[in-house]
């Protein structure tokens, strides 16, 4: 398709990936490659393995890679710790952001931002400079300053949690962002805010993977590629029209595709 982008090296390569948890196979041979500037969407029914894929890329300790590789900027990261992945520029937007009672949001954001900055050989920010930076980024997601003094995600509404995720993405400036159902639980206004935030943060060097059930996020952010997942595999890849087709024909269509393959 858009071959112009492929002049540079890929950011992320997932190569024939098999993974399991508690000896239960979940991924059964997933391959995909993301180049700078590309937006990929992964769609599929609940339980097809799309969230698992995102967690494995981020390094969740509960999953074992049994076969295949994940490469980030050309390097195999199969056994890299999650924090090392994050520092080198992999960002996972959680479907259900975790509440951490007692840990202040501001402190959390500052420590993680500095961890990333340290990796990039940038100067670490003190509380004062960091507040300045956060203020600027808060604008992006239209969040109130008061969010910073609360505990991480605790007592946040669904929409607030998702905006907090995008705020983190803005602060960490990842090379690749995997956004797991960032659209779920959002009303239309919140969806627009989140989508415009994502668009502003990403640029020609960033890769984005959107994991979603529905078309509505893809109306806001048009993907270059759409992958349909079922039973731990990508069963079909196409352009943005594939999502529309899927929306129209429903997931039963993909069920039939599995039977065919």
């Amino acid at each position: 398709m858009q071959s112009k982008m492929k002049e540079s090296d890929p950011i992320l390569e997932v190569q024939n990936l098999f993974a399991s948890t508690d000896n239960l196979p979940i991924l059964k041979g997933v391959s995909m490659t993301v180049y700078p500037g590309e937006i990929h969407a992964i769609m599929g029914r609940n339980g097809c393995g799309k969230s698992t894929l995102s967690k494995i890329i981020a390094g969740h300790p509960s999953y074992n890679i049994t076969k295949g590789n994940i490469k980030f900027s050309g390097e195999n990261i199969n056994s890299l710790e999650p924090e090392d992945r994050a520092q080198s520029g992999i960002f996972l937007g959680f479907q259900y952001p975790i509440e951490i009672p007692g840990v202040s949001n501001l402190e959390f954001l500052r420590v993680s931002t500095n961890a990333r900055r340290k990796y990039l050989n940038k100067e670490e920010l003190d509380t004062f400079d960091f507040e300045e930076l956060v203020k600027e980024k808060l604008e992006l997601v239209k969040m109130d300053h008061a969010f910073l003094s609360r505990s991480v995600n605790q007592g946040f509404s669904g929409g607030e949690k998702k905006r907090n995720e995008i705020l983190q993405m803005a602060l960490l400036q990842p090379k690749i962002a995997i956004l797991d159902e960032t659209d779920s639980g959002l009303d239309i206004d919140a969806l627009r805010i989140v989508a415009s935030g994502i668009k502003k943060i990403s640029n020609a060097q960033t890769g984005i993977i959107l994991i979603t059930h529905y078309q509505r996020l893809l109306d806001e952010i048009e993907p270059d590629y759409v992958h349909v997942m079922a039973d731990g595999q990508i069963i079909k890849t196409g352009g943005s029209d594939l999502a529309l087709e899927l929306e129209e024909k429903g997931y039963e269509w993909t069920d039939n595709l599995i039977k065919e393959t």
Partner: protein
Amino acid sequence: MEIIERIKTNKLIDNPTDIQKICLNKLQSNPLPNPKSELWRLSNKSKFSNFFEYSANEKNPNFDIPYHSNPKDIIRIVIGLDSQILLKKENYSIQQLNRDKLDKYIKQKISCFDQNEHWSDLLNLCLSSEKNILGLKIKGSKIPPIEIFSHALSNSLKAKTLVIFVEKDCDVKLLQVNLGKENSSLSQSTFFCLEENSSVNHGIVSYGERKSHLLNSLNVIQQKNSEYNLGSLHFKFNYARFEIRIKQSAGNAKTNIKGMQITKNNEQISTYTKINFNGPNGFLDQINKSIANDKSHAIFEGLIIVPKIAQKTDASQLSRNLLLSNFAQIDTKPQLEIIADDVKCKHGATISQLNEEELFYMRTRGITLTEASKLQLSSFFQEIISFIPISKDRWDLLDKLLNEN
């Protein structure tokens, strides 16, 4: 166990006071607590006997207060060193109780002691020399914060006793610091009496050094409409035992307790609490946290007693525990004994390790596992530490803890 021998043979002290005689008498037939009773069952026997390894001499009472800056707005007292205390200001007074009154009060207390339950207090009063018993009467308003130190120096066993009367309508912030130097044993007994409408923010920070031991007993009586808040922290003792007994003598009082104990290496630290509601409309909110690492053992036993007279009691007790190593052990036993029917009581207990999902979340944001664990631990601590008066402003306790854990 030299001391126990001396108790048995009645050769403990050369010139015993009346109080010492009474306690000695009580202890003679049964000099040790019943190891089978619930209160002592889990106590490590060899560690407990280590408590008595040191001699109870009186020499060299000087000691260095761990931090010297003494802002003017804090009153500092070291039990055993400050002989005469009388502070009279325009709106308040802190006054040492006269000896007769103090003796009378203590004797009356002893007369209602249950041998097993109050064993630590009996031992304390048996060993405490006259100058190590401090009695204070506090009244008035706008009282500056008070710090009271008890300490045991290396190679010694010390007993310190503190009796405090908080007069009507009085509001006090008081931090008690118990320090155990290397190879030492400290017995601390504290008796608090809160008059009507008084309010006390009480902090206890107890920390030891290598091979230090502590028996810390706290007895509180609350009159009507009083409020008693306790924030406590015990750590770094080879063996420490913290006993809390609180009685709301006529109900209608408020008690808030937030306590924490941290054990490492092969330490054993335990907390026993007994809250007795002796009248209606009492309120209790209690949380006790334990963190056990390495081969250590943390114990919590909490008992809430709500007799028939204590209608409309609202009590909650929570025991939260973090078990951080495969070789550590945590025992917890939150208990309720209720006879009144119109009450709201609940208790809960959890034992777990650090939350893995929370850790993973932080790690995906580039925070290292060690740092993420620290953040989680610090939030676990924060709730307790912020409740300890005075300390939080001037002590970098939190940092100290985090860097050591």
